[in-house]
């Protein structure tokens, strides 16, 4: 009797230890995040000023203006390329393909592979193919082409999921009213899946904004005094701007790297907030 009681006590203590470990790790994860964010924001936000945001780039201001414009340009252009391709691909996978047939298997394998390729390998490919073979040289154009391939899997998988979450009754209703399959897809399925597709697009924007390794040898590290939309010029994005400032190692450039980091974090906040909102909408739709 005594032994079993002892045993039970021991088990209880062990359980308590496990439980506190588990709690510790949950809190630790949040703690790490908060520490990283505060570390960058507290040092970075006070360094942000008008000169830095909108001034001419020189060794004094180290202005991020032209890299911000390049980042926006790169986002717009790569989305123009990969959103139609990605959404069409998702439509094919969710609406037109028969499950388990050969081409679908190959396409899925390809998408999984693309999702797993590290950005430095995309960078190498972009350098070999777009920069050298196609002769785009180190330019925004080469960067855009490389990035468009990189974000394709993000857009495809979130669009496919969104399309699949559209209830079948919607399709049946539309088909029953005599609409063609195509009309059903464009008039009923896509509009209903829009929040999910948008969430994927915003995620893709997040990847473009934060990307460094895939761009450093394709769009390059060059910076112009004033913003320019020249597709054939080598220009850096905001993330590369931060990398260059950080690796210069001078106190002033280090401060400005903190400022750039703070801007990037604010963008990430915004992106996270909007995807959560959109995902919430999709969830509600499924519950209806």
């Amino acid at each position, binding site marked *: 009797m005594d032994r079993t009681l002892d045993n039970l006590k021991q088990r209880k203590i062990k*359980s308590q230890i496990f439980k506190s470990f588990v709690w510790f790790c949950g809190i630790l*994860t949040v703690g790490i995040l908060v520490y990283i964010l505060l*570390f960058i924001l507290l040092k970075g936000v006070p360094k942000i000023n008008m000169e830095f945001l909108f001034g001419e780039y020189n060794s004094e201001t180290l202005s991020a203006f032209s890299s911000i414009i390049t980042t926006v340009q790169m986002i717009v252009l790569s989305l123009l390329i990969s959103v139609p391709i990605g959404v069409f691909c998702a439509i094919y996978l969710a609406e037109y393909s028969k499950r388990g047939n050969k081409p679908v298997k190959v396409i899925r394998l390809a998408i999984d592979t693309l999702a797993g390729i*590290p950005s430095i390998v995309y960078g190498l490919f972009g350098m070999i193919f777009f920069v050298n073979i196609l002769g785009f040289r180190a330019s925004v154009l080469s960067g855009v082409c490389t990035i468009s391939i990189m974000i394709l899997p993000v857009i495809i998988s979130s669009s496919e999921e969104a399309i699949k979450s559209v209830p079948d009754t919607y399709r049946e209703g539309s088909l029953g009213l005599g609409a063609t399959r195509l009309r059903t897809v464009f008039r009923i399925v896509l509009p209903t899946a829009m929040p999910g597709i948008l969430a994927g697009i915003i995620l893709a924007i997040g990847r473009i904004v*934060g990307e*460094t390794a895939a761009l450093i040898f394709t769009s390059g590290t060059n910076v112009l005094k004033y913003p320019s939309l020249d597709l054939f010029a080598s220009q850096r994005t905001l993330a590369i701007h931060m990398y260059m400032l950080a690796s210069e190692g001078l106190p002033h450039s280090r401060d400005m790297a903190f400022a750039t980091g703070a801007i990037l974090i604010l963008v990430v906040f915004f992106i996270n907030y909007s995807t959560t909102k959109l995902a919430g909408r999709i969830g509600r739709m499924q519950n209806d």
Partner: protein
Amino acid sequence: MQNIKESNFSEITMQAIFFLSALISVLAVLAICLFLFMRGIPAIAEIGAIDFIFNEKWGPTNTPASYGILSMIVGSIYVTAGAIVIGVPIGLLCAIFLVEFCPSSVYKIVKPAVNLLAGIPSIIYGFFGMEAIVPFVRENMGGNGYSIMSASIILGIMILPTVISISESSIRAVPESYAEGSYGLGATKEETVFKVVVPAAKSGILTSIILGIGRAIGETMAVVMVAGNSVMPLDKIKILKPIRTLTTNIVTEMSYASGLHESALISTGVVLFVFIIILNASLSSIKSKAQRN
């Protein structure tokens, strides 16, 4: 009548367009393989495959030049292993916390935090590592801070969201009846979680670890900022000493490389790519095994 014909026509054209769009991913993968191998393989052949992979001397600007990447392969394995040692236990326990222990008011804080961790760009992690982790390691553990240790810590943090979210959903997918059975036999909540629920979720947890390995081994910018990047002879590799990995080898030297040197860097990328393909293949074999069960 005309109307129906027209819509038939557009139906078929659009179907073709959807299919072609889907093929673009396949084309992209083929192009990436083709051009990487086209540039990388001849260089490996010129250097000699054995010499390239099993030689620890990397000196492209020496005379005679040497192109051995063994030290970087080992470096990549070290920092990835370090990341796993740090990130997997914390991530797994955090996933267990999210599913089994956390009150819903706390869940509303931790879950978004994990999502936010996943969204932070690697350049931020790298800069944070350079400004916070490197000095910490220098002052508390020794060396100059740029080390395997710092790289492992940063990568360990970076793989957290991957490990947490995939483990979380696989733990959630374990049928309730398993836990009920265990409670019925008199087990405590903690015993049930660790001895019944987690083992039942092991294929999903394994998947999360492999994805974490993939993220760690391919990470470039965060590592280049904290690892110090010196090529170390194998017997001098220490956990508090600088290290160069496959990815950072490419990034540190590409800007001034040319000729065989440039090709050797691309070959380094090919080796990395092969690692990733092996990881992907093991992932899909886990997936198909899990589906069969």
